């Protein structure tokens, strides 16, 4: 029998389920640009389509300072507090 020491941080990752898909879009949709090139173009188009198809839905634009780092806590809290949905745009 060989005994070895655990090289990991010994934590089991928290299992998170995907949020159930809501039947309809309502309230406020956050459009988060992660600051990759042309992410804003994708969100421009999406915002336009949302306005046409779901005029009662409000859209608010946000952007991360840089795509290479996680969003700052303050930005996450702001989006969480003010939005019902988030669309995050990855682009290039």
């Amino acid at each position, binding site marked *: 029998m060989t*005994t*070895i*020491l655990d*090289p*990991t*941080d*010994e*934590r089991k990752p928290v299992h998170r389920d995907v949020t159930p898909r809501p039947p309809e879009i309502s309230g406020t949709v956050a459009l988060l640009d992660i*600051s990759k090139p042309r992410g804003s173009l994708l969100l421009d188009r999406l915002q336009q389509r949302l306005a046409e198809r779901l005029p009662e839905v409000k859209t608010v634009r946000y952007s991360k300072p840089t795509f290479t*780092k996680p969003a700052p806590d303050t930005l996450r809290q702001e989006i969480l507090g003010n939005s019902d949905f988030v669309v995050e745009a990855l682009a290039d």
Partner: protein
Amino acid sequence: MPLLAVLNTYLAGQTGIALQLLVLGQTVEGNQQLADAHALPVIDDSDLRVSFASDIDTVPTLLQVDAEGNTSTELIGFVRSEWQALLSNLLGSDATEQLLDWTGLPEWRPGCGSLSVDPLIAQRLQAEADDSPLRARRVEVAIQDDEFEFMFDQGFSDGLPLVPPTPERVLRMLAGTRRDAQEVIALMPPNMGEVSVEKVAINAVMAGCRPEYLPVVLTAVEAVCTDAFNIHGVMATTMGASPVVVVNGPIRERIGMNMKLGALGQGNRANATIGRALRLVVRNLGGARPGGTERSTLGNPMKFTMCFAEWEERSPWSALHVERGFASEDSVVSVFTMTSGPTLIVDQDSRKAEQLAGSFGLCLENAFHPKSHFATDVLLVVCPEHVDTLIRDGYDKAEIRARIQQVTARPIEELAGDELSGVGFKPEAVAQMDAETLRRKLPKFRNPEDIHIVVAGSDAGKFSGAFHGWATGEIGSIPVSKKIEEVS
């Protein structure tokens, strides 16, 4: 619980009995309940030290202990007649019978296993009791299992075999540092795992390090876990970035690092295993694994390991760490993010410094893409024969950088996306520029300081090398240098 509560109330009303009831609880939540619901005098043993020291296997266990701490009675689980007999002995049989209706209590309950003997916890408690520096979970590999296969199966490996990190090997590794084994030196993204000295030692054993390499590995881990270096982004990017570790100062010689023939290649244990240990720490403590948060399109072989030392004595210029603000006698680890390389700069013909530095520039123009300017930085590794050509004309690092910037400078109009290639300034941006702006020349690098220069390699051969960087500056990764504090 009713029995303990009744007993506690009874004892509180008696002045003639020198008997104290103490209840030891093993979980914080349970202890709160005992105190709230039954007003019991609870001692918090959620760290399980008392339970472990008292050899408790089962809860409840009732101990009768005298003032000197000697145990005279031990009742395991709940056997009604045993508890009755003990209390009769202490309080008298009448008082015991009047405490409560004993027939309302079960005759026998076996109890449960004590948390202090839980296999996942008991080893740690034993280590603490023995004052061992080892606190990591011990994993027993069954006798029929091959430990090398086991470690592959557990996902600990970068794809190559690992040295099994047995407690004996990890203890030997820890002898390489004066730092406390339980000191937490960093939080490793993306999982923000706590990186203790012991955990680094375990991964260093697996990588094949010798104990004297450990201070270098620890410092490299600290250097990458800074906001400036941004190891989170370096691991997550689809570009396939990885840290390059450069070591300067006296420790290079002391631990036998290679800075000469084949410095960037295989064959030297210190170079190979220090870089590998860093990557295993990132993998095993941060959780960055290919297909998970590590999402490189192609990957690159430097993700196994990339560490070398600068041949300071062969360089006529300030060594990297001195340029970056340290004393020459300091031992320093510098980390740089690379995405390509080392790409070879083959120039066997230039005899003048101006020509050779010109070649450097022409080759560096390809970093990322020839039309991509101001996008990245570079770690240029100048070989000794090239050093000789450069110093013959008195070139210092500033002149090398200036020449590179000079030969790479292109007018913005040539750096615009076009039919040949879409990379470069976007047509809509170019349309907004006036003629003077379009003729303005941009060098390859935003700042001359984005060209980092070190000397390494054998005395023979006119082949320098370059590691191309990643997104440089605040938006990506900034090189970080850190002194190895415990090495004098």
